[in-house]
C-alpha cells in the first residue's frame, strides 16, 4: 500500500529533468544519461527528489496508519486547502532564486481580501470589476517594493518587512472587523467543484489556478529569458551584470511577480474564506518560505525548482492532514514538525552547498 503513492511521484522525476535542463545551458545534458543508468542521478536533482521522496513517504505512512487516508479526495484537498500557499510559493520561489526574500506576501493576501470584500459588499462592485483592481493593486505594491530594493540598494528583508506593516495597516484602515461576502458571483465561484473522476472526487477553481500558476512558474523559470536571468542573478549578481543581463529590470520584475502572485493568492483566499479580514493569513509568509526551502531551493539563491515548491506546499499540507487524521495530536505539533523538517532540509542544503566550489 505504501508503495502505491510513491510510484507516480517517482515517475515524475524524468519530466523535471527535461524541463530543468534549459536553465543550465553550460552543464552537460545529463537527463539522457540518467535515463540510461537510473542508478546515478544528477546531484542537482537530489534535493528535489528528496522532497518528493519525503512527500511519498509521508503519504505512504498516512495511508498505512489511518483508514480513509488513501483516497483521491484527501490528496486533492491538499491542493484545495493550500491553493493560496502554493500560489505565493511560486512567487516566493522566484524571489528566493534571485537571492532576495519577500515578507509582505501574507499581508498582501489580507489586503486583497479586505479590498475585495469592501468593494463588493460596501460599494456593490461586481466580481469582474473588483478582481482586476485588486490584482493591479498587489502587482503595483510588489513593483514599488522592487523599485525601492533595486534603485536604492535597500535590503529586501527590511523593505518587504515595511511593506508587510503597510499592507496590514491599510487593512485596518478599511475596517477592523471581518467583512463577510454574500455576493452571488463570489459564493458561486467559492462553491464550484469540478469533478475529476466518476467516484465524486472534485477540485475547486482556486486549486486549478494554483496548478496553473505552478505551470506558468515552471515555464517562466526554464523557458524564458526572465527565468534564466533570475537564476543568473541568484548565482552572482556581479557576474550577471558583467554578462550584460538586464539585472535591474529583472530584480524589479521578480518582486512585481511576487506581488501579483500574492494578490492572486488573495483572490483565491477570498473565495476560500468568503470574507475580508485584516487578520487573514498572519504568518503565511513564513509558511511560504518554509515550503520553498523544503522544496529544495537554496536560500542563497540561484538553485532550485518551482516544482519543488509545489511538493514543499504539499508536504506542509499533508503534515496538517496527518495531525487532523490522528486526532490525538494538538495543532501546535504542526509547527514543531514543520520546524524540524526545515531544520533537516537546511542541514541537507548545507551539505550540498559545501560540496559545491565557493564563488
Amino acid at each position, binding site marked *: 500500500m505504501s508503495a502505491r503513492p510513491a510510484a507516480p511521484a517517482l515517475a515524475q522525476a524524468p519530466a523535471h529533468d527535461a524541463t530543468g535542463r534549459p536553465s543550465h545551458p553550460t552543464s552537460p545534458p545529463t537527463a539522457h544519461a540518467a535515463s540510461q543508468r537510473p542508478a546515478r542521478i544528477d546531484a542537482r536533482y537530489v534535493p528535489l527528489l528528496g522532497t518528493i521522496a519525503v512527500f511519498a513517504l509521508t503519504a505512504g505512512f498516512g495511508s498505512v496508519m489511518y483508514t480513509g487516508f488513501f483516497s483521491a479526495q484527501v490528496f486533492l484537498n491538499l491542493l484545495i486547502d493550500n491553493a493560496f500557499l502554493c500560489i505565493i510559493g511560486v512567487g516566493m520561489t522566484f524571489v528566493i532564486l534571485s537571492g532576495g526574500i519577500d515578507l509582505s506576501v501574507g499581508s498582501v493576501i489580507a489586503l486583497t481580501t479586505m479590498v475585495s470584500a469592501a468593494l463588493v459588499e460596501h460599494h456593490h462592485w461586481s466580481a469582474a470589476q473588483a478582481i482586476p483592481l485588486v490584482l493591479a493593486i498587489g502587482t503595483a505594491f510588489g513593483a514599488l517594493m522592487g523599485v525601492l530594493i533595486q534603485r*536604492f*540598494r535597500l535590503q529586501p528583508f527590511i523593505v518587504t518587512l515595511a511593506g508587510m506593516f503597510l499592507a496590514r*495597516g491599510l487593512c485596518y484602515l478599511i475596517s477592523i472587523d471581518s467583512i463577510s461576502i454574500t455576493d452571488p458571483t463570489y459564493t458561486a465561484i467559492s462553491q464550484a467543484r469540478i469533478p475529476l473522476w466518476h467516484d465524486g472526487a472534485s477540485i475547486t477553481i482556486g486549486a486549478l489556478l494554483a496548478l496553473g500558476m505552478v505551470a506558468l512558474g515552471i515555464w517562466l523559470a526554464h523557458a524564458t529569458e526572465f527565468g534564466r536571468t533570475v537564476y543568473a542573478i541568484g548565482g552572482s549578481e556581479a557576474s550577471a551584470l558583467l554578462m550584460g543581463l538586464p539585472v535591474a529590470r529583472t530584480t524589479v520584475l521578480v518582486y512585481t511577480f511576487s506581488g501579483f502572485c500574492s494578490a492572486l493568492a488573495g483572490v483565491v483566499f477570498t473565495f476560500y474564506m468568503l470574507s475580508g479580514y485584516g487578520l487573514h493569513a498572519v504568518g503565511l509568509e513564513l509558511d511560504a518560505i518554509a515550503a520553498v526551502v523544503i522544496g529544495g531551493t537554496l536560500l542563497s539563491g540561484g538553485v532550485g525548482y518551482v516544482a519543488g515548491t509545489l511538493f514543499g506546499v504539499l508536504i506542509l499540507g499533508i503534515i496538517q492532514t496527518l495531525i487532523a487524521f490522528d486526532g490525538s495530536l*494538538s495543532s501546535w*505539533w504542526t509547527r514543531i514538525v514543520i520546524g524540524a523538517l526545515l531544520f533537516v532540509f537546511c542541514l541537507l542544503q548545507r551539505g550540498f552547498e*559545501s560540496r559545491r566550489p565557493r564563488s
Partner: protein
Amino acid sequence: MQRLLRHRLLWPFVTLALLLAVNAVFNPGFWQLQWRDGHLYGSVIDILNRAAPLALVALGMTLVIATRGIDISVGAVVAIAAAVAALMIGGELVVKDGVQTHVSRFPMGVAIAAALVVAALCGLWNGLLVAKVGMQPIIATLILMVAGRGIAQLLTGGQIITVYYAPFFFLGNGFLLGLPFAVFIAAAVWGVLHWLMTRTALGLFIQAIGINPAAARLAGLQERLITVCVYVFCGFAAGVAGLVISSNVKSADGNNAGMLMELDAILAVTLGGTLLTGGRFSLAGSVLGALIIQTLTSTIYSIGVPPEINMVVKAAVVFVVMLMQSAEFRAALRGWVVRPAAAGGAR
C-alpha cells in the same frame, strides 16, 4: 556644534524629542508626574515601563545585527521563557496557619533561572546553526521562530496560564526608588553591555566580525565563539523580556506572547542607527529606538487616532528611516533638490 550634528544618535534623539513634543501639545498632562504611595506615576513613566521589554530584546538584537546576523526567533523565545516561568511558578492556593496564601510550585529563583537557561539554550541553538553549521542567520532563526511558537503552545497546552504568586509580579509591576523595576532591569543590562563594549575589546571584536567575518578570523579572532556568544546573549535578553512581560500581565500566553516582537526589535535597532549590514552599532541608539516605538504607540492612543493606524505609521517610519540610510537615495535626493535650482538659475 559640528560634533553634535555629526553624532550618530542625533536623528533618533530628534525623532524622540519631536514625538514627545507632539504628545505634550495634544496631551497637556503628558509631563505631569504624580507621587502616589511612594511611586511615580505619569505617561512618561508608563512609556518607560512598557518600553523596557522591547529595549531588552533590542539590545540583544543589536549585537546579533552588528555581527551581520539577524534573529527572528526572539518573539518565540519570549513566549517560551514566559511559559517556562509561569509553569514552574504556577501558584496554588494553600491554607497556611488559617490564612489562604499562594505558594509557588518551585522556588521563584529556580523558576526564573530555569526560564533564563532555556532562553539562553534557544540562543545557543541559533548560534550553533549560524556559526558551526554555517546557515544564513535569517533561516537558522526561522526554524526556531516556527518551531518555538509550537513549543510554547505545547508547554502552555494552548491555554493562557495564569500565575498566582505575588512576589513574581514585582518584575513587571514593582517599583524601586519610585521607578518601575523593569526600567532598572533594562538599565542594568544596558550598563553591563556598555561596559563590556567600551571597556573590553569585545565591542571591537563584534564590529570587526560585522565588517568582515573572514578578515576577523584571519586576524586571529575566535569569530565562531563570539558569534555563538552573541546569539546566546540575544536569547537570554529575550528570556528576560519574556519574564518581565509575563510578570506584567500575570500570565503566560503561548499563542500570542511576543508576537511580532522580532519585527519591533529590528525596527528599534534600525531606528537607533545600527546598520543592518553589520559593523557599526549603537546600544544607546537601540534603547532610543525602543523608546521611539513605545512613544509612537502611546502617542497614537493619546491623540485619539484609531490604534489601527499604528501599523501604517510604523511602516511609514521604516520607509523614511531606511531611505535616509541609503547612500543612493541621498544622492538621488541631492540630485532632485539641486537640479531644479540649477535649472531655475540658468533661466
